[in-house]
């Protein structure tokens, strides 16, 4: 379990995270939602140790994040950010093999390659594993990066807007993969997501942030209500029930 206690973060004079306390439970998909500038990505980056916190405490399985070694953390928690986009010409397989770096420091053993093969198979990348990343579509690239994280074999997987720039088909594909990671492999997934309906249909727990604070959190059936959403986003939503899911209509 990840515990965040009274977390604070300032950029210059702007308080981006203010007294945030949350718990992220194992074996679930937790989604961070909220308007632009709410501090979702900052919170995710702090949990994954990419940026330092100003005050507060973050523990992963009761271990203080700041007291853990970077190399050990890389076997426990992984993060994918949008900025991962690269100009380097690497093949899918090479990228996925980097996921084993925390274990092998570059010298991959047979077990490492087995993990690489499994990750590639798991994301259906076998046919394109020798292609270069820059020859692939956005959806295929995203899958390749997720395969790397799968090969990294961490308990916690954090993703910052994994659906960015993806069309509907690929967005659904990615969300189904994340669901499978949780249901089949017992991983814990935390995502920052803008599409409220994806959050509603796929997550177990939703944390809503606004102006650096947690406004509300709960299961989708507690969160996806027009009154709650109005509080978060300051706009009107129609929430409809459809096949046991709650779908928001806000387009007109």
């Amino acid at each position, binding site marked *: 379990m990840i515990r965040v206690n009274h977390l604070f973060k300032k950029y210059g004079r702007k308080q981006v995270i203010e007294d945030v306390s949350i718990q992220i439970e194992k074996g679930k998909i937790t989604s961070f939602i909220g308007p632009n500038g709410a501090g979702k990505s900052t919170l995710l*980056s702090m949990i*994954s*140790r*990419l940026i330092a916190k100003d005050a507060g405490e973050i523990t992963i399985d009761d271990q203080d994040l700041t007291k853990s070694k*970077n*190399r*050990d*953390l*890389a*076997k426990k928690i*992984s*993060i*994918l*950010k949008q*900025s*991962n986009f*690269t*100009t*380097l*010409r*690497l*093949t899918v397989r*090479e990228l996925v093999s*980097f*996921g084993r*770096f*925390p274990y092998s*420091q*570059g010298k991959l053993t047979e077990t490492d390659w087995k993990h690489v093969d499994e990750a590639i198979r798991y994301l259906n990348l076998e046919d394109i594993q020798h292609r*270069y990343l820059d020859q692939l579509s956005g959806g295929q690239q995203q899958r390749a990066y997720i395969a790397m994280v799968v090969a*990294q074999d961490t308990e916690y997987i954090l993703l910052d807007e994994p659906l960015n720039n993806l069309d509907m088909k690929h967005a659904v594909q990615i969300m189904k993969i994340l669901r499978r990671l949780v249901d089949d492999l017992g991983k814990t997934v935390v995502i920052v997501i803008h599409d409220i309906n994806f959050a509603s249909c796929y997550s177990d727990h939703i944390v809503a942030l606004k102006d650096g604070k947690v406004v509300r959190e709960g299961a989708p059936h507690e969160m996806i209500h027009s009154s709650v959403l109005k509080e978060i986003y300051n706009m009107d939503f129609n929430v409809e029930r459809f096949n046991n899911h709650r779908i928001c209509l806000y387009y007109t």
Partner: protein
Amino acid sequence: MKLRYLWIALFVLSVISIFVGVQDLTPLDLFRLGDGQSLILLSSRLPRLISIIIAGSSISICGLIMQQLSRNKFVSPTTAGTMDAARLGVLVSLLIFASASPLIKMLIAFAFALGGTLLFMKILDSIKMKDTIFIPLVGLMFGNIISSVATFIAYKYDLIQNMSSWLHGDFSMIVSGQFELIYISIPLLIFAYLFADKFTIAGMGEEFAKNLGLNYQQVVRIGLAIVAMVTASVVLTVGMIPFLGLIIPNIVSIYQGDHLKKSLSHTAVLGAVFVLFCDILGRIVIYPYEISISLTVGIIGSGIFIYLLLRRRAYDT
């Protein structure tokens, strides 16, 4: 392209290189070397060949490392001020420590090269517009500023002529006893090979590296230190070789990708082959005179550079 063919090309060109020159030396002579011929072979032809191979491969690898660490395909020792800074260092060492040993001179050149490169990386960090072409242009300007400082100092102390000999990379002055400093590149390149994976991961960005538990800052510093050290040793022994660190890694990247472990040996051998070819060309064109290596590499290299730029544009659209 197979690595094997590159090795064959390197071997053939090496043989040609040994037997091209004003003094007659034929393969048959090897079996009955006279005093004069063995002197030519051991004190001139072989040192020249060795320094060409080391300089060609090491500067190419420096370019490759810099391109990965700066995440820009057009950054190299020539387009990031590293060479100019190293040259300024040589000048300063000449002025202040005139009687110092070559090793001390190299350390001073190294310090300047490292400082210049770090300064350029700092400038890179603060540039908002991360256009691929824009960054090397900034680097060239930065290099020219350092270069004009060097020229100013040299002018004041009447060292212009000395300095122009480092401005132009030249292998014709290489004789035994004066080039051995370049050997320092070899252990550095082996070190670079051991760090190959880490450089590539660092090249994916700081956050990416941190996620994999890699100490990003440390790897970048080690990479730049290798680059500065190698550049300093080459500038001191051979001189400046423009464009080399730029074009060779880019050519290799096209057919071999950017995984350093895969592309490093190709880059090294292709770099050596390219410089060797240019050197032989420079020795043949106006035989018995020579054209300096910086001129031949500069002309052929800038042609390839333009091709790479145009190719990239076609590729982007």
